């Protein structure tokens, strides 16, 4: 029938077994180096600025002064905490890209307590109430898509995405409701005089609290996934839902429970952002970190400790970009371009870790 001799294809792909960790790290490092070279070429071509100078200013932007270093670390811990929250969901293959909305709702919960009952309660009670309302609202925003997924199998990527914008509009609504002064469209610093509801400074440093919380949550998530029954169930649901039904795990319950935890941790970030760092509520308080966290978590292969490194890389680039912007009189967004290119390379290099490429051998053409 088929008279044309079937040629073996030139490239043959097979899935690799587990690759030694050091080898995988070398491939990823190579990808980053390649990405930096490409970034340098693009920088030179489009702006005519010496790329080396750009890179040095990125470093000085992130670590130039003690204050800059602290802010970098604080940003890392915020991004890390959101990534950890999302990781819980990702481990059961639930694509929660609603971190943005969950953080916003958490922030709204905190701000609501500060504004409405801030002056009437003693600080510890107020902060406890803020904590409760942030966690509840964050958890609620994780719960809604989780219930839909568990009961009706609603596509969670799309539903969590929609929840983000619903949250944004709710926050905008309250921003205008609470705006000070009227007509400004901004809430401004909440309780500037009384400092009611401001999270306490630890050891006299306002940067330390998020860092401590992020560390605690890193350890918590690691232990929760690896050593607890809940974590085991999450992993089984993620690897194979059919197996989990077979062994008697209640998949619906696991999905709902995990998303409550995931949303609550995001809500906690909202509390830190509003009560500890910004002392105000805006619709952009999360600043796209709910989305960036997806990348951070995935790049770290959902490993909580590797996430420290990946969130650091992202924040480093972002902070550096601000410095480039001021030093070379460029636009802040240049950092996004560089981050995007680096991400493409890191995403692409996973292929070489997971798959093996075999070229067609010369002698075997007439098989």
């Amino acid at each position: 029938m088929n008279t044309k001799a079937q040629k073996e294809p030139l490239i043959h792909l097979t899935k690799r077994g587990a690759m030694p960790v050091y080898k995988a790290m070398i491939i990823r490092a190579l990808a980053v180096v390649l990405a930096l070279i490409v970034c340098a070429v693009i920088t030179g071509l489009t702006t005519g600025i010496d790329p080396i100078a750009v890179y040095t200013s990125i470093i000085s932007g992130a670590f130039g002064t003690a204050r800059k270093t602290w802010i970098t670390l604080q940003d890392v811990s915020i991004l890390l905490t959101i990534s950890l929250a999302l990781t819980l969901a990702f481990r059961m293959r639930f694509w929660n890209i609603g971190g943005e909305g969950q953080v916003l709702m958490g922030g709204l919960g905190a701000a609501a307590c500060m504004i409405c009952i801030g002056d009437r309660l003693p600080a510890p009670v107020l902060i406890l109430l803020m904590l409760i309302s942030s966690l509840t609202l964050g958890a609620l925003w994780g719960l809604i898509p989780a219930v839909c997924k568990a009961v009706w199998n609603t596509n969670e990527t799309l539903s969590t995405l929609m929840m983000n914008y619903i949250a944004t509009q709710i926050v905008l609504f309250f921003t205008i409701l609470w705006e000070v002064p009227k007509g400004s469209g901004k809430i401004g610093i909440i309780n500037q005089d009384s400092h009611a509801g401001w999270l306490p400074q630890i050891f006299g440093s306002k940067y330390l609290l998020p860092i401590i919380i992020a560390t605690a949550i890193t350890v918590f998530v690691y232990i929760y996934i690896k050593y607890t029954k809940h974590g085991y169930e999450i992993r089984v649901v993620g690897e194979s839902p059919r197996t989990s039904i077979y062994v008697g795990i209640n998949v619906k319950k696991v999905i709902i429970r995990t998303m409550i935890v995931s949303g609550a941790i995001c809500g906690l970030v909202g509390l830190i952002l509003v009560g500890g760092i910004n002392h105000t509520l805006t619709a952009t308080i999360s600043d796209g970190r709910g989305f960036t966290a997806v990348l951070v978590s995935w790049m770290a292969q959902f490993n909580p400790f590797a996430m420290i490194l990946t969130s650091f890389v992202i924040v480093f680039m972002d902070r550096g970009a601000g410095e480039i912007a001021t030093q070379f009189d460029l636009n802040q967004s240049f950092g996004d371009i560089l981050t995007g290119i680096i991400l493409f390379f890191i995403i692409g290099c996973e292929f070489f870790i997971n798959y093996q490429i075999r070229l067609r051998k010369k002698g075997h053409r007439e098989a």
Partner: protein
Amino acid sequence: MLGFLAFIPRAVAQGIPLLFGCTGEIVTEKSGNLNLGLPGVMYVGAISGVIGSFFYENSVGTGDVNTALAILIPLLCSMAGSLVMGLIYSFLVVTLRANQNVTGLAMTTFGVGFGNFFGGSLIKLYKADIPSISLSKTSACFRMQLPFADDLGVIGQLIFSYGFLAYTAIIIAIVVAYVLKKTRVGLNLRAVGENPATADAAGINVSKYKYISTCIGCVIAGLGGLYYVMDYACGIWSNDAFGDRGWLAIALVIFTLWKSDLGIFASILFGGLYILHLYIPTGMEHMELKELYKMIPYVVTMIVLIFTSMRNRREDQPPQSLGLNYFREER
């Protein structure tokens, strides 16, 4: 009544970028690729067109622009820009089998950054002596109306008062709906999106279909960005002005249940909801209510999403393999 008549053309103008984005995303998603990079693609489509026409207008100086060139250059630049984005996405997702959500979000980071960077610093980089990017001449070409629009009164205003890209969007949406529903190519494409293994067994080149549909989808979506800058915004680029329309377009895909002909009306409806708050008298005391009106498109989409999964009708579902990559040897 007069207010309502003025409302419709503005709703349409708001809806057209969404329609482009929605149609593009439908083409992409039908192949099983969930491209969350759509907002980035639309930014790149917009800025590529702006860059093209910026250089063209600068080279012409104060003289008159050639209408055909003023339209063709930005159009081709925009299509080329979004095509490159489509190729990046397809290469990473189809060839290298990277995670679709992650790749898409990286594309959005890159694309929005690309748009805002060049939009914000194009003038500085090329030392042009103008205060801001305002491509009024190109925009005039894009906004050209049919000559008899004004003579037809109300009907002319409602139906014939738009630039040519608006009609292009509607034609593309109809063509896409036809191709997906009635042709062999469309059937194959849907097969790839529903179950690539079966499609592969039937002799369909899965990778080729995924590549081509993703790239075509991106080019269509990019035109939405171009329409926004050149027609809606009168050729004036301002950073972040495009806003979250890219995400709204993705919402629209769900809302229309992956049917691009339905997208024509749905996008105008969403466009209307997007600006509804300008027309509802809220009074100065209750400015906050307008934010709740803006929430309606997303809430409606969420409800549609939940309802379709509840009813679980086969023809209303997302493509079955949406978000999953296909590797032939992994079965």
